[in-house]
């Protein structure tokens, strides 16, 4: 319950990003603002401040003001970190959420087709899933991202630009398909051997009806259990890809890219990297708690193990 409320609060806050950028921070979170200044207590303070230590050549972005503009300070481009955090949250949630949906749908279709029809379809699909499964998740995701990030992806008439959110969504969705499809296939196989399905087939009930009445409801339960946990994994892998600058592309933001932006400021303005991390941890934690709750509610024997 707490987890669900927490998730909603985070999502709503991120949805309010444009409002925040317009009303509170007052600067464009996607344009650099190196020469700008901000008024604090009636005094104008430069967003990029000259360094006082060392040689004094470089500049350091303004730190957290703890009020309206630059609440959490600025990044190296002089952009408002708080506003970017909210916009980035939108992207992180959209990517993780849509990737989860795609993963679950694709995995369900593959799992049901393989498990229910069996035969050579099952053999081919299972082998494909085996191969994907043995491909280390991070390596597969990074490989796909690296290749597509330069020029985007062209599939026939459809071109997905390299800065489109669709790229990370599709890549992340694909990577976790075997992790969901394999258990679903197993479940369908098991269902197919249960006595009520055997009896139904013996009585000449058409396959479509068995699928609809006996198989789908069971698979749906599994999918609901998997949904929050898959989304938690997706959040993490999205942030990792963006952190490696092969996920969401500048000037767009996600929590992962903000951590990456903050890396160079880690020792002077640590909040830039810490804040998005805290946002990720809270969101993923809420998803995991939710996942535990859903699993306990729907699958009391907790047989589904996702790893």
């Amino acid at each position, binding site marked *: 319950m707490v987890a669900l409320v927490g998730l909603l609060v985070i999502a709503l806050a991120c949805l309010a990003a444009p409002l925040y950028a317009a009303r509170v921070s007052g600067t464009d979170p996607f344009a650099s603002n190196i020469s700008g200044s901000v008024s604090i207590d009636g005094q104008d303070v430069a967003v990029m401040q000259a360094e006082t230590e060392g040689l004094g050549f470089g500049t350091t972005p303004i730190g957290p003001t703890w009020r309206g503009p630059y609440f959490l300070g600025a990044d190296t481009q002089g952009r408002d970190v708080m506003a970017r955090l909210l916009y980035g949250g939108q992207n992180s949630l959209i990517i993780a959420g849509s990737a989860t949906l795609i993963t679950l749908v694709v995995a369900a279709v593959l799992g049901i087709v393989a498990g229910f029809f069996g035969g050579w379809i099952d053999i081919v699909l299972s082998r494909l899933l085996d191969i994907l499964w*043995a491909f280390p998740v991070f390596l597969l995701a990074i490989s796909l991202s690296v290749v597509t990030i330069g*020029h985007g992806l062209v599939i026939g008439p459809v071109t997905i630009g390299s800065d489109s959110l669709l790229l990370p969504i599709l890549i992340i969705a694909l990577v976790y398909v075997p992790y969901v499809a394999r258990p679903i296939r197993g479940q369908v196989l098991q269902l197919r051997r249960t006595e009520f399905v055997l009896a139904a087939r013996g009585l000449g009930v058409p396959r479509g009806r068995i699928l609809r009445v006996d198989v789908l409801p069971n698979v749906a339960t599994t999918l609901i259990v998997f949904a929050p946990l898959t989304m938690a994994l997706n959040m*993490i892998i999205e942030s*990792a890809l963006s*952190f490696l600058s092969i996920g969401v592309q500048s000037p767009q933001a996600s929590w992962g890219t903000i*951590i990456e932006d903050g890396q160079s400021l880690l020792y002077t303005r*640590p909040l830039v990297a810490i804040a998005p991390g805290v946002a990720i*941890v809270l969101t993923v934690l809420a998803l995991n708690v939710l996942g535990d709750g859903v699993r306990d509610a729907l699958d009391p024997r907790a047989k589904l193990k996702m790893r």
Partner: protein
Amino acid sequence: MLLRRLGEMVFVMAGISVLVFLIFFATPGADPAARIAGRNASPDVLAAVRHDFGFDQPLWVQYLLLMKRLFVTGDLTSFVNRGQKVIPSILQAVPVTLSLLIGAAVLWVAVSVAIGVTAALTRGTIVDRALMILGLVGVSMPVFWVGEVANLITQSRYHDSWFFSWVPALGYVPLTQDPVGWFKALVIPWVTLAILYIGLYGRVLRASLIEAYHEDFIRTARAKGLGEGRVLVRHALRTSLVTFVSLFGLDFGALVGGGTLLTEIVFGLQGVGFLTFNALQNLDLPVIMATVMYASFFVVASNAVVDLLYAALDPRVRLARA
């Protein structure tokens, strides 16, 4: 049985190699020659590069050539640093990854067993709840972010305090050169990498211990007049071991192969993951192919090892097969 297993391993690895090859050569829009030649290369240069690297040959010829040089002759060289042999550079990176991984594994096994046992024994109390929430927090933290925060604390903010002044600058120190330096350089990375698995394994162990404590044989063990310690270790823990060990085998396999990539990058440890990431960024296909093959070998092999361990740990499985 063993042959079938081996056949499956070869099949899966061959599949992965084809997949990698297709990802890097056949993905629409990806052109390795363009990447090698540089952004503003003239068409002539591009053509020369294509010919030079054999990109003008049919895909299957390129694939077979690559496989031959990787597995048969072993003289595969990098596209980017021409002349750099791929296999030796992987072998050079292995000790770094292993150092990181083994230390972290020792840590996460020890701590997660302590946490799992404590939580199971104090089930339902505040201690149990707190441990499980902490575990979930551990599972929910991106490892690279934990690394960044750890660096912030130990390299900058509190580096001058007595508590962290011993932490050396980022980077790897070979064990054979300076064991103490090796240890100091790796402590923080170990902790960082271990946190996720401590949370995960602590929770898994607690669950399987609690399941074990519901079994009749625990009651029998108590009825025999055994001490609680012996009941816990020899009966409850021993029967929970199967789950724990198989999980460990799979995770260890995935990590040896380069799953430590993010940790290595954050701490500047030039292990296999680091090498892989560099190769990926440069689209250095020979290195990518070699490292991915290396990684998937460990994933596939750990699967096989876990199956064997299963049989070794559970006589019901062992005897069912024999």
